[in-house]
């Protein structure tokens, strides 16, 4: 089973994301900010990170920089999931090592499409 770390300071968003990702057969762990997410990654890297941008303590962009420098940290697929919906933020995320980008609000179809896009799901599954 593939693993996904959901990083968001909103417990409601984490809960929704968890339900969707478990439906797509991911094993989900949660973190409420970048710093807590980094601690988890230092113990074990997930296959995917669904990553909010604005969070207290450490934001998503800074977290991604630290995670990418961990041994094997280039492996996880990072999918931003944020209300920052402008081209400048998207471009910054991509050049910083993000694989995909979701602009909130999101639903199951968007998550499935984006995860298929980065090879975490077979294409057919995104079509349901």
């Amino acid at each position, binding site marked *: 089973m593939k693993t996904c770390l959901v990083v968001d300071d909103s417990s409601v968003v984490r809960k929704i994301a968890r339900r969707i990702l478990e439906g797509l057969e991911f094993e989900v762990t949660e973190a409420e900010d970048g710093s807590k997410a980094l601690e988890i990654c230092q113990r074990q890297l997930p296959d995917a990170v669904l990553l909010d941008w604005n969070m207290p303590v450490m934001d998503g962009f800074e977290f991604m920089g630290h995670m990418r420098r961990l041994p094997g940290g280039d492996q996880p697929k990072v999918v931003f999931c944020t209300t920052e*919906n*402008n*081209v400048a933020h*998207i*471009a910054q995320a*991509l050049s910083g090592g993000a694989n*995909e*980008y*979701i*602009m909130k609000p*999101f639903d199951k*179809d*968007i998550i499935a*499409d*984006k995860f298929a*896009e980065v090879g975490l799901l077979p*294409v057919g599954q995104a*079509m349901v």
Partner: protein
Amino acid sequence: MTPTEYEYLRKFLKDNSGLDLSADKQYLIESRLLPLARKAGLSGIAELVQKLQGGARQLITDVVEAMTTNETFFFRDKVPFDHFREHIMPEIIKARAAKRSVRIWCAAGSTGQEPYSLAMCLKEMGAALTGWRVEIIATDLSQEVLEKAKAGVYSQFEVQRGLPIQMLVKYFKQTGETWQINPELRAMIQHRQLNLLHDFAQLGTFDVIFCRNVLIYFDQDTKINIFNRLARQIEPDGFLVLGAAETVVGLTDTFRPIPERRGLYKPNDPRAAAAKPALGGAAPRLAAMAGR
């Protein structure tokens, strides 16, 4: 919705658009027609049916459009676009090296996601198509849908279905909450209103025809008739792309499937096809519908 109302709408849609709904599509009718009925100030399906029976012309058009408009998104199903990039275009680039021109028809272009996806594929091919004349004709039954396709403006939700984020950044311009495809890509596509039940010979011949997820709604005779007419609009070495749930097999021998390439077909030798008598059955129906 009563069974009588459902049967009326089924027959009405078949007569007016060729749409062939099975007996269990009540949910589809309700989800598409209830919003339309409310918009028209009607109480529900029952009143809508009364108005249709009374021959309300605008309503007839609206109902047909609402029922024949499909959900669509960028690079829908992925596989056909892989065929396009890896198989179709490399062959065309070789075969048309002297002529340097390619004509593509999206026969159910809908709100533009399919033709724009093809335009993006072609752009990504870069230098291989430098100096080529590229024509994409996108047709749809619905004028409302065509207007949307022409504008190329999509909601944040729509641009997140099937479209890789790199392509969004590269080929779209953000305006507030919406995203518009670049003028350069919009200029690659001609949008035209067309009912596939009517004659389309005036469109000319094509190297590639995408005709996806539209024929599934037609009955068998209509499908056969459309396949046979599509065969006349395709170059002998051209390609036909159908939807994942569609096939020519068992319906016509004007096209043959390409092995290992799901949904991809080539025309059979036109002389062989021409030698066979045209398959009948659909012509009277077409004549009956011509007044739409």
